[in-house]
């Protein structure tokens, strides 16, 4: 389930995504000296058929790459995508040689065969030699790529038509060069990928999580792997013309890695990866169009990287900044709760006779200056836990409840450690000091039950009861009377 909080984050960094790219776009237009406004108008009105194809193609490649990329990231085969994308190059040239023209189907077939050959080579190498998988991937990647380059330079240098073949577009990609037949092929492959993943989701899930178990269950693990490789090779190939050989792996890895940071269920991960893939691809196509001479692939990749950066920093659960912020607010809360507790203690010590507690007594208790206490109490006031009136501080009902809770947690925990864990009473305070802030309601109830609803802690102080915590009374609550008695 994508919570509202998650959605907020997603839109938050969407804004972030736009900002740097927009800055860059301004620069781009300076360099290529096109009229930015006019280009924008052309883009959004979609008058250009080539633009329409480019955009549709980008969306399709975003879908297929995001979907299959999700699997390769959770299978820890991310760099298989990289190897595959380089390994298809000789197939692209071979497909061209088939009938000496840029027939997308011939190129698709040739490139898919080359990609599968590459992935088979990687598994053969790791199975039959001591070469580790990473080295095998790098080896296949670069060797196939070199073979592809040899073929390609041969074509360009030895054929008069070679230079016009546009084979070099396959390196960094040009979405604007997509034609009707390319888009038709892309739709077919994307549709195939979506249907296959939907049909075999269960098999893909279990083989990705626990291959040994899947094979022991009699599932066709090898066929699932080969099928995934086939789909992967095909979606790499259809993405080639738009993204280019060198960077197509990023469209597989980056959106999926970003999604991996945001969710804990595979189907949501795949959905998010598709959304991010489409987003990155369309943004890339947009800027490549606006900036005329810019290759599309790198721009798409930068779009995806921005999404990843956003997830890395602001992801609600695993984001670096979010974690930092949570730690910070936790320490802020701990501090406030310690102040609340101190107020409770002072009030309790003074026989609970007074309505409020003087700041001076509080400062002595906390061994702090009046100034520091003033800051702490103000923070309580901001959070609606206490009110300050001259030299005195008073609990609000919420503050009163929270302070009783904290004191109760602390004293119950001390008692528990002393009674059940045989720890000396003078050793339990520090531990309770940390645990009091995080104990949940159910754990507290359980503790209380185990302790036989004890009323006093090992030091002889009264433990506030459930009623004290929940009745939202003023300062002269039940615990006060009992504590004073």
């Amino acid at each position: 389930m994508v919570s509202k909080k998650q959605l907020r984050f997603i839109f938050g960094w969407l804004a972030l995504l736009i900002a740097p790219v927009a800055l860059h776009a301004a620069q781009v237009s300076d360099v290529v000296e096109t009229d930015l406004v006019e280009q924008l108008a052309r883009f959004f009105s979609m008058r250009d058929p080539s633009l329409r194809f480019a955009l549709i193609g980008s969306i399709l490649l975003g879908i297929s790459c995001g979907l299959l990329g999700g699997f390769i990231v959770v299978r820890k085969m991310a760099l298989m995508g990289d190897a595959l994308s380089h390994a298809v190059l000789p197939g692209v040239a071979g497909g061209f040689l088939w009938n000496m023209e840029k027939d997308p189907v011939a190129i698709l077939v040739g490139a898919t065969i080359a990609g599968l050959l590459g992935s088979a080579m990687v598994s053969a190498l790791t199975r039959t030699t001591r070469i580790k998988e990473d080295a095998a991937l790098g080896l296949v990647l670069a060797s196939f790529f070199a073979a592809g380059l040899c073929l390609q330079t041969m074509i360009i240098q030895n054929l008069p038509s070679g230079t016009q073949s546009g084979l070099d577009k396959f390196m960094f990609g040009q979405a604007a060069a997509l034609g009707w037949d390319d888009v038709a092929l892309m739709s077919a492959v994307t549709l195939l990928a979506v249907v296959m993943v939907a049909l075999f989701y269960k098999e893909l899930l279990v083989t990705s999580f626990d291959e040994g178990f899947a094979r022991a269950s009699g599932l066709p693990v090898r066929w699932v792997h080969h099928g995934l490789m086939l789909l992967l090779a095909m979606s790499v190939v259809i993405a080639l013309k738009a993204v280019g050989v060198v960077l197509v792996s990023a469209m597989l890895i980056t959106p999926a890695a970003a999604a991996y940071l945001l969710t804990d269920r595979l189907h949501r991960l795949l959905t998010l990866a598709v959304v991010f893939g489409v987003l990155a691809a369309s943004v890339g196509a947009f800027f490549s169009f606006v900036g005329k001479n810019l290759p599309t692939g790198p721009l798409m990749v930068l779009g995806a990287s921005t999404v990843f950066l956003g997830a890395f920093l602001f992801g609600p659960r695993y984001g670096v900044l979010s974690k930092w912020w949570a730690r910070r607010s936790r320490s802020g809360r701990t501090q406030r709760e310690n102040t609340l507790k101190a107020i409770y203690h002072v009030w309790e010590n003074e026989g609970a006779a007074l309505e409020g507690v003087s700041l001076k007594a509080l400062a002595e208790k906390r061994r702090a200056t009046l100034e520091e206490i003033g800051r702490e109490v103000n923070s309580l006031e901001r959070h609606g836990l206490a009110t300050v009136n001259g030299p005195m501080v008073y609990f609000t009902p919420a503050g009163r409840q929270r302070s009783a809770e904290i004191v109760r947690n602390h004293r119950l925990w001390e008692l528990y450690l002393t009674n059940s864990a045989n720890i000396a009473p003078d050793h339990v305070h520090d531990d309770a000091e940390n645990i009091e802030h995080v104990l949940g309601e159910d754990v507290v109830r359980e503790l209380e039950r185990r302790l036989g609803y004890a009323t006093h802690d090992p030091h002889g102080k009264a433990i506030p009861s459930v009623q004290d915590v929940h009745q939202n009374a003023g300062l002269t609550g039940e615990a006060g009377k009992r504590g004073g008695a």
Partner: protein
Amino acid sequence: MTKTPDRPQVPSLEIHDLTVAYHQKPVLWGIDISITSGRLVGIVGPNGAGKSTLIKACMGLLPLSSGWVKFFGEPFSRAATRIGYVPQRESVDWDFPVNVMDVVLMGRYGRLGLLRRPGKADREIARQCLEKVQMLPYANRQISNLSGGQQQRVFLARALAQEADLYFMDEPFAGVDAATEAAIVAVLRELRDQGKTILVVHHDLPTARQYFDDLVLLNMRLVAYGKTEDVFTAELLQKTYGGRLTILSEVASALGTAR
């Protein structure tokens, strides 16, 4: 050398002349075992003795250099749905984006076959299996938030969901707390009493003696197979752990206190 009690019915597991090699180096040599149903069998032996290799080879997860394995008189491919498996806990990535329920449901996949999805009945079975290992309250937890013992219980629940007749378990007691260990043993005994066969790879000799009906003593070759009280002897253990004096002296002291 092999002590196979004479029993008339078709054995649950029959291993004949099984040899497995990694990079031309044999790990297991000419193993012959025949196990009848309703037995809780421990597989023990020193590190590198081929304990995990044995069960993986049985299920066809590793290529055999020679020999064959039959389950209920049939090859693995035809008997797969009657076989349950608990792999080593470290063999999977616990950061994987699934929750506890998803993992237990995987136990049903083998029975569902291709294209069908787990339905209501499967969910109900999964829930019962989770209940059996006391993990039902965690059904919606992401698996990385579980302790080692809880992860092992989830794996056990998944194997239970397979509703198999023969179970292979690879070190189910490795790195779990005492409570989980006791709970797992209770579940294994319950399965045994239902007439199922359970093979457990185990590395702790003193507890092996308590937990299992039969023991397979393994060190590249089959040293002995038979009832625990028959094969848990100093002589056979020395053969199994040959030369490893530290382990031997430990076991000797365990034997001394036990007998």
